[in-house]
Protein backbone atom coordinates (compact mmCIF):
# COMPACT_ATOMS: atom_id res chain seq x y z
CA UNK A 1 0.00 0.00 0.00
CA UNK A 2 1.25 3.42 -0.82
CA UNK A 3 2.23 5.40 2.22
CA UNK A 4 0.77 8.54 0.70
CA UNK A 5 -2.67 7.11 1.01
CA UNK A 6 -2.15 6.81 4.72
CA UNK A 7 -3.06 9.69 6.95
CA UNK A 8 -0.47 10.82 9.41
CA UNK A 9 -3.24 11.28 11.85
CA UNK A 10 -6.92 11.71 11.75
CA UNK A 11 -7.21 15.43 11.26
CA UNK A 12 -5.70 15.87 7.82
CA UNK A 13 -6.79 13.93 4.76
CA UNK A 14 -4.18 12.37 2.53
CA UNK A 15 -3.61 14.49 -0.53
CA UNK A 16 -6.00 13.13 -3.12
CA UNK A 17 -3.99 13.95 -6.27
CA UNK A 18 -1.11 11.78 -5.01
CA UNK A 19 -3.14 8.68 -5.51
CA UNK A 20 -2.91 9.10 -9.28
CA UNK A 21 0.85 9.47 -9.39
CA UNK A 22 2.84 7.60 -12.00
CA UNK A 23 5.05 5.02 -10.39
CA UNK A 24 8.37 3.54 -11.33
CA UNK A 25 9.83 0.46 -9.72
CA UNK A 26 13.44 0.54 -8.61
CA UNK A 27 15.59 -2.49 -8.00
CA UNK A 28 18.55 -0.53 -6.68
CA UNK A 29 16.85 1.94 -4.42
CA UNK A 30 16.23 -0.52 -1.55
CA UNK A 31 19.98 -1.14 -1.43
CA UNK A 32 20.45 2.41 -0.18
CA UNK A 33 18.96 1.44 3.14
CA UNK A 34 20.35 -2.06 3.58
CA UNK A 35 23.79 -1.00 4.74
CA UNK A 36 22.52 1.80 6.94
CA UNK A 37 21.61 1.48 10.56
CA UNK A 38 18.20 3.00 10.10
CA UNK A 39 17.62 3.24 13.83
CA UNK A 40 20.29 5.90 13.80
CA UNK A 41 19.62 9.40 12.61
CA UNK A 42 19.97 9.69 8.85
CA UNK A 43 21.08 12.79 7.00
CA UNK A 44 19.75 13.03 3.50
CA UNK A 45 20.31 15.36 0.59
CA UNK A 46 17.49 15.63 -1.92
CA UNK A 47 18.44 17.74 -4.94
CA UNK A 48 14.88 17.95 -6.20
CA UNK A 49 11.90 19.77 -4.80
CA UNK A 50 10.22 18.65 -1.60
CA UNK A 51 7.43 16.27 -2.53
CA UNK A 52 4.74 15.05 -0.15
CA UNK A 53 5.42 11.38 -0.73
CA UNK A 54 9.15 11.77 -0.09
CA UNK A 55 8.55 13.56 3.20
CA UNK A 56 5.96 10.97 4.10
CA UNK A 57 8.36 8.14 3.30
CA UNK A 58 11.13 9.52 5.47
CA UNK A 59 8.78 10.27 8.34
CA UNK A 60 9.33 6.66 9.41
CA UNK A 61 13.01 7.37 10.04
CA UNK A 62 14.83 9.60 12.46
CA UNK A 63 16.31 11.91 9.91
CA UNK A 64 17.15 15.32 8.64
CA UNK A 65 16.43 15.92 4.98
CA UNK A 66 18.03 18.82 3.18
CA UNK A 67 15.91 19.87 0.24
CA UNK A 68 17.96 21.85 -2.24
CA UNK A 69 16.12 22.07 -5.52
CA UNK A 70 19.13 22.35 -7.78
CA UNK A 71 17.02 21.79 -10.89
CA UNK A 72 15.26 25.10 -10.24
CA UNK A 73 18.44 27.07 -9.72
CA UNK A 74 19.28 29.65 -12.39
CA UNK A 75 22.76 28.15 -12.50
CA UNK A 76 21.38 25.09 -14.26
CA UNK A 77 20.21 27.20 -17.19
CA UNK A 78 23.45 29.14 -17.28
CA UNK A 79 26.21 26.60 -16.86
CA UNK A 80 27.80 27.77 -20.08
CA UNK A 81 28.12 31.30 -18.69
CA UNK A 82 30.23 30.30 -15.71
CA UNK A 83 33.77 31.27 -16.58
CA UNK A 84 35.90 28.59 -15.00
CA UNK A 85 36.10 25.55 -12.72
CA UNK A 86 36.78 27.60 -9.59
CA UNK A 87 33.78 29.86 -10.15
CA UNK A 88 31.66 26.81 -10.91
CA UNK A 89 32.74 25.16 -7.64
CA UNK A 90 31.91 28.32 -5.72
CA UNK A 91 28.46 28.43 -7.29
CA UNK A 92 27.76 24.89 -6.13
CA UNK A 93 29.24 25.57 -2.71
CA UNK A 94 26.77 28.42 -2.26
CA UNK A 95 23.92 26.07 -3.08
CA UNK A 96 25.22 23.19 -0.98
CA UNK A 97 25.79 25.10 2.24
CA UNK A 98 25.02 22.83 5.16
CA UNK A 99 25.75 23.23 8.85
CA UNK A 100 29.30 22.52 9.95
CA UNK A 101 29.88 18.86 10.64
CA UNK A 102 27.12 17.67 8.32
CA UNK A 103 27.84 14.27 6.83
CA UNK A 104 25.39 12.86 4.37
CA UNK A 105 24.18 9.29 4.58
CA UNK A 106 22.06 9.37 1.45
CA UNK A 107 22.20 11.61 -1.60
CA UNK A 108 19.18 11.52 -3.86
CA UNK A 109 20.47 12.92 -7.12
CA UNK A 110 17.87 11.47 -9.49
CA UNK A 111 18.87 12.51 -13.02
CA UNK A 112 20.73 15.64 -11.92
CA UNK A 113 24.11 14.34 -13.07
CA UNK A 114 22.77 14.08 -16.63
CA UNK A 115 22.47 17.87 -16.75
CA UNK A 116 26.04 18.61 -15.73
CA UNK A 117 28.82 19.08 -18.24
CA UNK A 118 32.31 17.88 -17.41
CA UNK A 119 33.32 21.03 -15.52
CA UNK A 120 30.06 21.16 -13.61
CA UNK A 121 30.30 17.50 -12.69
CA UNK A 122 33.73 18.03 -11.19
CA UNK A 123 32.61 21.22 -9.43
CA UNK A 124 29.55 19.52 -7.98
CA UNK A 125 31.70 16.65 -6.74
CA UNK A 126 34.14 19.06 -5.09
CA UNK A 127 31.40 21.11 -3.48
CA UNK A 128 29.83 17.96 -2.07
CA UNK A 129 33.10 16.52 -0.79
CA UNK A 130 33.05 18.12 2.72
CA UNK A 131 29.75 16.41 3.42
CA UNK A 132 30.71 12.96 2.16
CA UNK A 133 31.72 10.29 4.64
CA UNK A 134 32.45 6.60 4.31
CA UNK A 135 28.78 5.96 4.96
CA UNK A 136 27.53 8.12 2.11
CA UNK A 137 25.50 6.37 -0.57
CA UNK A 138 24.12 7.93 -3.73
CA UNK A 139 21.22 7.04 -5.96
CA UNK A 140 20.86 8.56 -9.39
CA UNK A 141 20.44 8.06 -13.09
CA UNK A 142 22.88 8.51 -15.92
CA UNK A 143 22.79 8.58 -19.68
CA UNK A 144 25.77 7.66 -21.79
CA UNK A 145 24.78 9.10 -25.17
CA UNK A 146 22.56 11.82 -26.59
CA UNK A 147 20.30 9.38 -28.42
CA UNK A 148 18.74 8.52 -25.07
CA UNK A 149 15.83 10.85 -24.51
CA UNK A 150 15.72 12.17 -21.01
CA UNK A 151 12.25 13.27 -20.04
CA UNK A 152 11.78 16.31 -17.83
CA UNK A 153 10.55 14.38 -14.82
CA UNK A 154 10.90 14.75 -11.11
CA UNK A 155 11.04 11.84 -8.72
CA UNK A 156 9.75 11.11 -5.27
CA UNK A 157 9.69 8.07 -3.03
CA UNK A 158 6.56 6.06 -2.44
CA UNK A 159 8.20 2.95 -1.02
CA UNK A 160 11.72 1.56 -0.84
CA UNK A 161 11.22 -0.10 -4.19
CA UNK A 162 8.75 2.32 -5.77
CA UNK A 163 9.39 5.85 -6.94
CA UNK A 164 6.86 8.44 -8.00
CA UNK A 165 7.32 10.21 -11.30
CA UNK A 166 5.76 13.49 -12.31
CA UNK A 167 6.39 16.19 -14.84
CA UNK A 168 8.91 18.71 -13.64
CA UNK A 169 7.63 22.26 -13.74
CA UNK A 170 10.92 24.01 -14.37
CA UNK A 171 12.52 24.21 -17.79
CA UNK A 172 14.63 21.18 -18.63
CA UNK A 173 18.34 22.02 -18.67
CA UNK A 174 20.54 20.84 -21.50
CA UNK A 175 21.60 17.22 -21.12
CA UNK A 176 25.23 16.11 -21.01
CA UNK A 177 25.78 12.38 -21.42
CA UNK A 178 28.74 10.74 -19.72
CA UNK A 179 30.09 7.25 -19.92
CA UNK A 180 30.67 5.40 -16.67
CA UNK A 181 34.39 5.78 -17.17
CA UNK A 182 34.03 9.54 -17.47
CA UNK A 183 31.78 9.75 -14.45
CA UNK A 184 34.12 7.63 -12.40
CA UNK A 185 36.95 10.00 -13.25
CA UNK A 186 34.99 13.19 -12.55
CA UNK A 187 33.10 12.05 -9.44
CA UNK A 188 36.22 11.46 -7.43
CA UNK A 189 34.33 11.10 -4.14
CA UNK A 190 32.46 8.03 -5.28
CA UNK A 191 32.80 4.55 -6.65
CA UNK A 192 30.18 2.80 -8.69
CA UNK A 193 28.59 0.16 -6.54
CA UNK A 194 25.94 -1.03 -8.95
CA UNK A 195 24.49 0.02 -12.28
CA UNK A 196 21.35 -1.20 -13.96
CA UNK A 197 20.39 -0.46 -17.55
CA UNK A 198 16.73 0.45 -17.71
CA UNK A 199 14.43 -0.22 -20.67
CA UNK A 200 14.38 3.48 -21.58
CA UNK A 201 18.17 3.52 -21.92
CA UNK A 202 18.89 5.30 -18.65
CA UNK A 203 21.38 3.79 -16.28
CA UNK A 204 20.23 3.53 -12.70
CA UNK A 205 23.22 4.10 -10.46
CA UNK A 206 24.17 3.31 -6.93
CA UNK A 207 27.35 4.98 -5.75
CA UNK A 208 29.31 4.68 -2.54
CA UNK A 209 32.04 6.78 -1.02
CA UNK A 210 35.53 5.97 -2.15
CA UNK A 211 37.98 4.43 0.23
CA UNK A 212 40.02 7.62 0.35
CA UNK A 213 37.11 9.50 1.93
CA UNK A 214 37.64 10.02 5.62
CA UNK A 215 35.17 8.58 8.02
CA UNK A 216 32.92 11.25 9.39
Amino acid at each position, binding site marked *: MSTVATQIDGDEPA*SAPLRGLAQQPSKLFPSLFRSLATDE*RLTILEVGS*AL*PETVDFFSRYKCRIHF*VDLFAEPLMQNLHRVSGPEEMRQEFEKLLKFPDGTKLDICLLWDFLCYLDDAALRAFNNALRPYVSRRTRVHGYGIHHLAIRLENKQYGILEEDTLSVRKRRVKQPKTHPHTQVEMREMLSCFDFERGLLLPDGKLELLLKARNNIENG
Partner: protein
Amino acid sequence: MQESPPTATRASAPTTKTAVIGAGIEIAGDVSASADLSINGKISGSIVQSSHDVDIAESGKVKANISARVVKVAGEVEGNLAGSEKVFISKTGRVQGNIVSPRVQLEDGAIFRGSIDMDPAKVVKPAAPAPAKKTTESSRVATSAGSSSAGPDSKASGNGTGPMHAKVTGGKEPGLTLKSG
Protein backbone atom coordinates in the same frame (compact mmCIF):
# COMPACT_ATOMS: atom_id res chain seq x y z
CA MET B 1 -28.69 41.95 18.89
CA GLN B 2 -25.15 41.91 20.06
CA GLU B 3 -22.65 43.05 17.49
CA SER B 4 -19.58 40.93 17.26
CA PRO B 5 -16.24 42.19 16.01
CA PRO B 6 -15.35 40.79 12.58
CA THR B 7 -12.11 39.08 13.43
CA ALA B 8 -11.53 39.62 17.09
CA THR B 9 -12.44 36.17 18.31
CA ARG B 10 -13.58 33.01 16.74
CA ALA B 11 -14.48 29.99 18.74
CA SER B 12 -13.17 26.86 17.05
CA ALA B 13 -14.38 24.59 19.81
CA PRO B 14 -16.59 25.12 22.77
CA THR B 15 -13.64 25.27 25.14
CA THR B 16 -10.97 26.68 22.85
CA LYS B 17 -10.66 30.21 21.61
CA THR B 18 -8.71 31.26 18.59
CA ALA B 19 -6.88 34.53 18.53
CA VAL B 20 -7.02 35.98 15.05
CA ILE B 21 -4.68 38.42 13.42
CA GLY B 22 -6.91 39.65 10.66
CA ALA B 23 -6.12 40.34 7.04
CA GLY B 24 -4.77 43.84 6.71
CA ILE B 25 -3.11 43.74 10.11
CA GLU B 26 0.65 44.15 10.11
CA ILE B 27 2.66 43.45 13.22
CA ALA B 28 6.31 44.32 13.53
CA GLY B 29 7.45 42.43 16.60
CA ASP B 30 7.06 39.17 18.40
CA VAL B 31 3.76 37.46 19.02
CA SER B 32 2.97 35.11 21.86
CA ALA B 33 -0.39 33.41 22.30
CA SER B 34 -1.87 31.25 24.99
CA ALA B 35 -4.61 30.15 22.58
CA ASP B 36 -4.80 28.86 19.06
CA LEU B 37 -3.55 31.57 16.75
CA SER B 38 -4.81 32.24 13.25
CA ILE B 39 -2.72 34.59 11.15
CA ASN B 40 -4.38 36.24 8.18
CA GLY B 41 -2.22 39.34 8.18
CA LYS B 42 1.51 39.97 8.22
CA ILE B 43 3.99 39.48 11.01
CA SER B 44 7.60 40.47 10.88
CA GLY B 45 9.63 39.70 13.96
CA SER B 46 11.88 37.13 15.51
CA ILE B 47 9.33 34.70 16.92
CA VAL B 48 5.69 33.75 16.86
CA GLN B 49 4.84 31.24 19.54
CA SER B 50 1.82 29.52 20.97
CA SER B 51 1.32 26.74 23.43
CA HIS B 52 -1.49 25.59 21.12
CA ASP B 53 -1.78 25.70 17.33
CA VAL B 54 -0.67 28.33 14.85
CA ASP B 55 -2.48 28.51 11.54
CA ILE B 56 -1.13 30.75 8.81
CA ALA B 57 -3.97 31.35 6.38
CA GLU B 58 -3.54 31.85 2.63
CA SER B 59 -3.37 35.59 3.10
CA GLY B 60 -0.95 35.29 6.00
CA LYS B 61 2.71 36.21 5.68
CA VAL B 62 5.15 35.61 8.48
CA LYS B 63 8.79 36.54 8.57
CA ALA B 64 9.78 35.02 11.89
CA ASN B 65 10.41 31.69 13.52
CA ILE B 66 7.26 29.89 14.62
CA SER B 67 6.97 27.58 17.58
CA ALA B 68 3.74 25.83 18.52
CA ARG B 69 2.12 22.48 19.16
CA VAL B 70 0.81 22.22 15.59
CA VAL B 71 1.86 24.60 12.83
CA LYS B 72 -0.27 24.78 9.69
CA VAL B 73 0.85 26.87 6.77
CA ALA B 74 -1.35 27.88 3.85
CA GLY B 75 0.33 31.25 3.36
CA GLU B 76 3.97 32.30 3.29
CA VAL B 77 6.59 31.81 5.95
CA GLU B 78 10.20 32.84 5.96
CA GLY B 79 11.62 31.38 9.13
CA ASN B 80 12.05 28.16 11.02
CA LEU B 81 9.09 26.08 12.15
CA ALA B 82 9.06 24.04 15.33
CA GLY B 83 5.99 21.91 15.87
CA SER B 84 6.09 19.86 19.05
CA GLU B 85 3.39 17.66 17.54
CA LYS B 86 3.14 18.32 13.84
CA VAL B 87 3.85 20.68 10.96
CA PHE B 88 1.53 20.74 7.96
CA ILE B 89 2.09 22.72 4.77
CA SER B 90 -0.95 22.88 2.54
CA LYS B 91 -1.00 23.15 -1.24
CA THR B 92 -0.93 26.94 -1.16
CA GLY B 93 1.79 27.10 1.47
CA ARG B 94 5.27 28.44 0.80
CA VAL B 95 7.96 27.96 3.41
CA GLN B 96 11.59 28.89 3.37
CA GLY B 97 13.30 27.73 6.53
CA ASN B 98 13.99 24.64 8.54
CA ILE B 99 11.40 22.44 10.18
CA VAL B 100 11.77 20.47 13.40
CA SER B 101 8.83 18.27 14.29
CA PRO B 102 8.10 14.62 14.94
CA ARG B 103 5.62 14.64 12.09
CA VAL B 104 5.71 16.71 8.94
CA GLN B 105 3.18 16.59 6.15
CA LEU B 106 3.24 18.39 2.82
CA GLU B 107 0.29 18.66 0.53
CA ASP B 108 0.81 18.35 -3.20
CA GLY B 109 1.62 21.82 -4.47
CA ALA B 110 3.29 22.99 -1.28
CA ILE B 111 6.58 24.76 -1.83
CA PHE B 112 9.25 24.12 0.75
CA ARG B 113 12.91 24.96 0.77
CA GLY B 114 15.08 24.08 3.71
CA SER B 115 15.65 21.08 5.89
CA ILE B 116 13.22 18.87 7.73
CA ASP B 117 14.32 17.31 10.99
CA MET B 118 12.05 14.51 12.04
CA ASP B 119 14.14 13.32 14.94
CA PRO B 120 11.72 13.37 17.88
CA ALA B 121 14.59 13.82 20.29
CA LYS B 122 15.31 17.18 18.74
CA VAL B 123 11.83 18.53 18.96
CA VAL B 124 11.69 22.02 20.32
CA LYS B 125 8.87 22.39 22.75
CA PRO B 126 7.15 25.72 22.41
CA ALA B 127 7.95 27.92 25.32
CA ALA B 128 5.07 28.98 27.48
CA PRO B 129 3.88 32.33 26.22
CA ALA B 130 4.96 35.25 28.29
CA PRO B 131 2.26 36.59 30.56
CA ALA B 132 0.31 39.21 28.70
CA LYS B 133 0.58 41.66 31.57
CA LYS B 134 4.27 41.96 30.85
CA THR B 135 3.56 43.73 27.63
CA THR B 136 5.46 46.92 28.01
CA GLU B 137 4.68 48.87 24.96
CA SER B 138 2.04 49.19 22.35
CA SER B 139 2.59 47.39 19.12
CA ARG B 140 2.52 49.19 15.85
CA VAL B 141 -0.43 47.94 13.90
CA ALA B 142 -1.35 49.12 10.45
CA THR B 143 -4.71 48.22 9.06
CA SER B 144 -6.06 48.40 5.57
CA ALA B 145 -9.08 46.20 5.74
CA GLY B 146 -10.92 47.68 8.61
CA SER B 147 -10.00 44.85 10.88
CA SER B 148 -9.06 46.55 14.06
CA SER B 149 -8.41 43.82 16.54
CA ALA B 150 -5.23 41.88 16.85
CA GLY B 151 -6.67 39.37 19.21
CA PRO B 152 -9.46 38.60 21.60
CA ASP B 153 -8.00 40.70 24.35
CA SER B 154 -6.75 43.56 22.33
CA LYS B 155 -7.88 47.09 22.84
CA ALA B 156 -7.27 49.16 19.79
CA SER B 157 -7.77 52.78 19.07
CA GLY B 158 -8.24 54.15 15.59
CA ASN B 159 -10.85 54.39 12.93
CA GLY B 160 -9.62 51.60 10.70
CA THR B 161 -8.51 53.89 7.92
CA GLY B 162 -4.95 54.50 8.91
CA PRO B 163 -2.19 53.55 11.30
CA MET B 164 -3.29 52.93 14.81
CA HIS B 165 -2.04 51.47 18.02
CA ALA B 166 -3.26 48.28 19.57
CA LYS B 167 -2.64 47.84 23.24
CA VAL B 168 -2.85 44.23 24.23
CA THR B 169 -3.81 43.44 27.74
CA GLY B 170 -3.86 40.15 29.51
CA GLY B 171 -6.68 38.44 31.30
CA LYS B 172 -8.08 35.08 32.12
CA GLU B 173 -9.10 34.47 28.54
CA PRO B 174 -6.47 33.10 26.21
CA GLY B 175 -5.03 35.84 24.12
CA LEU B 176 -2.10 37.47 22.54
CA THR B 177 0.99 39.16 23.72
CA LEU B 178 2.65 41.47 21.26
CA LYS B 179 6.08 42.84 21.70
CA SER B 180 7.15 45.40 19.22
CA GLY B 181 10.40 44.85 17.46
